[in-house]
């Protein structure tokens, strides 16, 4: 204290302090020399000489002085901080109930925030796990109908060779399909596989952990080469390096495993291996086959704008050279991170971040309220300290230290809460929302986040009560009785509660909208019945059934035997599950009515292509609205037929689709001879997504005329327990295929597929509802707290009123009236805020308007009931006050 006095009270700049000191010294030395008989000028000169080099001295002294000042401040600060922290712990231990409630509240708030931070960190903040990720861009082909279209292989190759701003450009198929791996023991296994072009690993900069990746040479030789993921290598091959360079049998062909790449690479797609698709000597029409998602690595220092204009020039050149295919087609670039994360995830993350932020604010308000109440009770203690000489800032600092200590304890508990949430949350996260294999991890970054959040929160909820608590004049407070102290503390508390209620209303409203969306999505009519349908992917080994006849016999046998199982109502085969997996992946076909003028390849309509057995429509209860279903007439030798869906029928220009012939060809191999099929029926539209903007175009061909090596088996059961039938169906297949080499995978029910399809809506609704519930409970605890406290403070007041003739009803009215005013104001503010904020989540809503009246009404009712519950206790207590006792109470 003493040492600081000098610097606090006589704040002389260090260099001035030194100058004065030296001046005094010189003067006194000169006087002494004159007194000894020296000439004044000579005396002065000698004094200066004796002093030495003043400039150097000054630098040295001022430097020492600065260091001393700094150390002193730090020491003083640390000493005071240590005292404050000790004192804070004593204070918190002295009020265990307060401490418990406050820290638990904060732990919930900080914990929720840390979990959401982990999500945001994993998706939005972290860069892609590749070297120089900022140089990676996704390149889309644009056309009149698509702003982000896939790319045809020849275009990709021309971009790669003609652009000057890219190191390399490569591609991959956006969907992951599978291949059957024949194992040494004669059994087979279905392994997920993604097609990539030769340069993809070079573009992404992924070095193999064993062997090599693909080369241009592989592509030129059209080599059958495959790269395994570390995961597959680990689970199937025990990380045995000998597998590298070996051949494995995939879909009956021999492929060479050239290398293994690390797990991080799986971000491209959830797959176990990557197979190279060579693109050499392609026919011209391959330009119309838009099948690749393309990534480019820009040269160092190139901006995305420069790369864009470079590629636009290349694309313009291609459009002039190949007008048949590339007319009106351009390119669009976006950072690869944006493509991977996706706007849906981004917006969901932001939503959660906002929601937990509000929850944390409510937590802060609650704790601030508790602190305010405590501060009122501690007014005398603080006044005494103030009278003993502590400045207001010093007391505020001490109170802030207390709240930060509180927040840090809450933060430590919050780490635990966050860890818990992160253990549970991944189960809720729908497949496909997170890119690739992003895992939520609880690491030092999250812990650091908790620490920072706790510090900020501590100051946030501590500053107002601390300021409030120190705004008194000491004599007045010390002479008075604590219970009579009212005033602005009460106002501040009311404002906090109002804010809490408003925030709770906002979150509840958001949750309401999302829940209504979820309900709309779940009750939405997809055109088929998903209940009680078991599905599985059946994949017989090609060598066991070498001819189409053999394969068909197998399928027929499985269908017949499964149908014979007890409880089975219907059995069907299909190459795809509605809303779910398709054995082709995303594999569009071009179609055109035979006899119409041929269209440019870039303008040809595309359709989804699905091979089904005749029973498919009855199994899914999917109506044939015109024409007929497939039947035994549609045999391999008879003319080929097809059933189209309503969207395809509409695209035929108003003609009656029945009897029309379509030329159908895979979009990625337009040079193939088109298949000519006659439309025999129109099936009801199946909606893939409730929020789909354009109707899905669909073409069905009969299994009797069209074959596919791996296919989905669908079994409708009579009872609710469709999944219970899976083992019986498996044994049916095993009994038929004596070689036991048929792989059965993806065993699930259509309801589960549907459940997964609505996953992101559910995820959002569940998460936001959970947080909103937490918010409402916290806000109600706040309302209850302030009311209980104010009743406590006004016991004598109420007692006096009762003594003067007020009934208990009057007292209840008084208590309820005050609280109701605050809550009603909060609700009004909250509803206004909701109306403003609802617009922000419009893209997440379906089947409900942002300003949905039902939701408004429900929120009001729910909060009204909750408030009534929160108010009831304190009001009842106020009504039971015994006047005589209350007045005697000091």
């Amino acid at each position, binding site marked *: 204290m003493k040492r600081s006095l000098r610097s606090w009270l006589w704040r002389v700049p260090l260099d001035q302090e030194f100058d004065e000191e030296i001046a005094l010294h010189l003067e006194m030395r000169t006087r002494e020399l004159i007194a000894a008989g020296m000439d004044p000028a000579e005396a002065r000169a000698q004094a200066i000489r004796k002093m030495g*080099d003043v400039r150097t*001295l000054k630098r040295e*002294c001022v430097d020492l002085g600065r260091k001393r000042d700094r150390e002193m401040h730090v020491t003083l600060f640390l000493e005071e901080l240590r005292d404050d922290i000790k004192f804070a712990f004593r204070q918190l231990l002295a009020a265990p109930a307060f401490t418990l409630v406050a820290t638990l509240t904060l732990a919930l708030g900080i914990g929720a925030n840390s979990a959401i931070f982990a999500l945001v960190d994993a998706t939005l903040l972290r860069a892609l796990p590749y070297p120089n990720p900022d140089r990676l861009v996704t390149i889309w082909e644009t056309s009149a109908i698509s702003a982000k279209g896939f790319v045809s292989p020849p275009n990709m190759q021309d971009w790669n060779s003609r652009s000057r701003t890219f190191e390399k450009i490569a591609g991959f198929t956006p969907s992951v399909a599978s291949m059957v791996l024949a194992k040494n023991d004669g059994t087979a296994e279905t392994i997920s596989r993604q097609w990539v072009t030769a340069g993809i690993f070079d573009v992404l900069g992924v070095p193999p952990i064993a062997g090599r990746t693909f080369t241009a040479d592989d592509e030129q030789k059209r080599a059958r080469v495959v790269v395994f993921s570390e995961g597959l290598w680990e689970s199937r091959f025990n990380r045995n390096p000998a597998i590298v360079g070996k051949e494995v049998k995939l879909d009956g062909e021999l492929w060479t495993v050239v290398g293994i790449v690390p797990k991080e690479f799986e971000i491209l797609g959830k797959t176990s291996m990557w197979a190279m698709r060579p693109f050499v000597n392609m026919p011209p029409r391959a330009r119309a086959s838009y099948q690749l998602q393309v990534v480019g690595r820009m040269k160092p220092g190139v901006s995305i704008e420069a790369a864009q204009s470079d590629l636009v020039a290349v694309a313009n050149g291609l459009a002039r050279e190949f007008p048949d295919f590339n007319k009106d087609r351009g390119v669009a670039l976006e950072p690869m991170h944006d493509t991977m994360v996706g706007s849906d995830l981004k917006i969901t993350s932001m939503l959660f971040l906002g929601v937990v932020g509000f929850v944390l604010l409510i937590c802060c308000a609650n704790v601030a309220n508790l602190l305010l109440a405590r501060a009122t009770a501690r007014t005398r203690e603080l006044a005494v300290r103030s009278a003993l000489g502590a400045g207001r800032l010093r007391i505020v600092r001490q109170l802030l230290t207390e709240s930060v200590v509180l927040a840090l304890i809450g933060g430590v508990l919050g780490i635990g809460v966050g860890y818990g949430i992160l253990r549970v949350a991944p189960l809720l996260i729908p497949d496909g929302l997170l890119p690739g294999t992003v895992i939520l991890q609880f690491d030092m970054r999250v812990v650091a986040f908790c620490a920072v959040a706790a510090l900020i929160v501590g100051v946030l909820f501590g500053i107002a009560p601390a300021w409030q608590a120190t705004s008194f004049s000491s004599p007045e407070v010390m002479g008075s009785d604590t219970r009579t102290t009212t005033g602005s503390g009460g106002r501040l508390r009311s404002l906090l509660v109002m804010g809490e209620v408003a925030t709770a209303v906002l979150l509840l409203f958001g949750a309401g909208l999302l829940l209504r969306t979820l309900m709309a999505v779940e009750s939405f009519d997809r055109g088929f019945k998903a209940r009680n349908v078991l599905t599985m992917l059946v994949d017989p080994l090609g060598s066991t059934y070498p001819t189409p006849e053999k394969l068909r016999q197998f399928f027929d046998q499985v269908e017949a035997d499964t149908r014979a199982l007890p409880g089975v109502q219907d059995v069907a085969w299909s190459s795809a599950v509605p809303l779910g997996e398709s054995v082709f992946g995303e594999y569009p076909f071009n179609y055109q009515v035979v006899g119409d003028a041929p269209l440019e390849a870039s303008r040809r309509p595309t359709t989804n292509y699905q091979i089904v057995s005749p029973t498919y429509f009855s199994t899914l209860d999917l109506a044939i609205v015109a024409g007929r279903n497939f039947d035994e007439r549609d045999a391999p030798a008879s003319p080929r037929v097809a059933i189209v869906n309503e969207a395809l029928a509409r695209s035929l220009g108003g003609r009656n689709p029945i009897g029309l012939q379509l030329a159908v060809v895979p979009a990625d191999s337009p040079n193939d001879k088109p298949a000519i099929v006659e439309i025999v029926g129109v099936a009801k539209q199946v909606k893939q997504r409730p929020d789909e903007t354009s109707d899905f175009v669909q073409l069905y061909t009969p299994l009797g005329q069209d074959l596919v090596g791996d296919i989905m088996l669908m079994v409708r059961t009579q009872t609710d327990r469709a999944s219970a039938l899976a083992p019986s169906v498996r044994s049916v297949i095993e009994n038929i295929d004596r070689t036991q080499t048929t792989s059965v995978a993806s065993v699930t029910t259509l309801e589960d597929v549907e459940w997964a399809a609505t996953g992101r809506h559910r995820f959002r609704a569940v998460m936001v509802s959970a947080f909103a519930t937490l918010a409402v409970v916290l806000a109600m605890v706040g309302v209850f707290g302030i009311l209980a406290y104010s009743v406590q403070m006004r016991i004598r007041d109420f007692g006096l009123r009762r003594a003067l003739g007020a009934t208990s009803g009057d007292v209840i009215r008084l208590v309820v009236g005050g609280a109701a005013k605050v809550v009603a104001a909060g609700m009004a503010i909250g509803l206004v805020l909701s109306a403003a904020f609802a617009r922000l989540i419009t893209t997440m809503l379906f089947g409900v308007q942002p300003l949905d009246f039902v939701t408004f009404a429900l929120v009001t009712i729910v909060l009204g009931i909750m408030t009534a519950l929160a108010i009831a206790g304190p009001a009842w207590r106020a009504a039971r006050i015994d006047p005589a006792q209350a007045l005697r109470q000091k």
Partner: protein
Amino acid sequence: MPPTSNKTPNALLHGALDALILKTLTRGPSHGYAVARFIEETTGDAFLIEDGSLYPALYRLERKGWVEAEWGTSELGRRAKLYRLTDAGRTQLAAEMATWRKFSTGVSKVFAT
């Protein structure tokens, strides 16, 4: 030049000067000039130092917390920075004096032989 050869006399001088200053201040708070004068008079010019070198020493001692500075009034009636010995300074002085006594008794014994 070996690194220690130059340091020892310097450190010795520092130590001695520090001790002298602390000792001077036991008589009460003084400003820099008074300290310089006192040392000159009592050591009888045996300890010749530049006036200037006194000040870094004072600042160093203040940084160590052995002396503290306050504003007072000089004989000329002007504001002057006065140095006062702190409790820590007193302890330090006692320690240095003890070390010195031990050292000088030792040396004296050698000389007495």
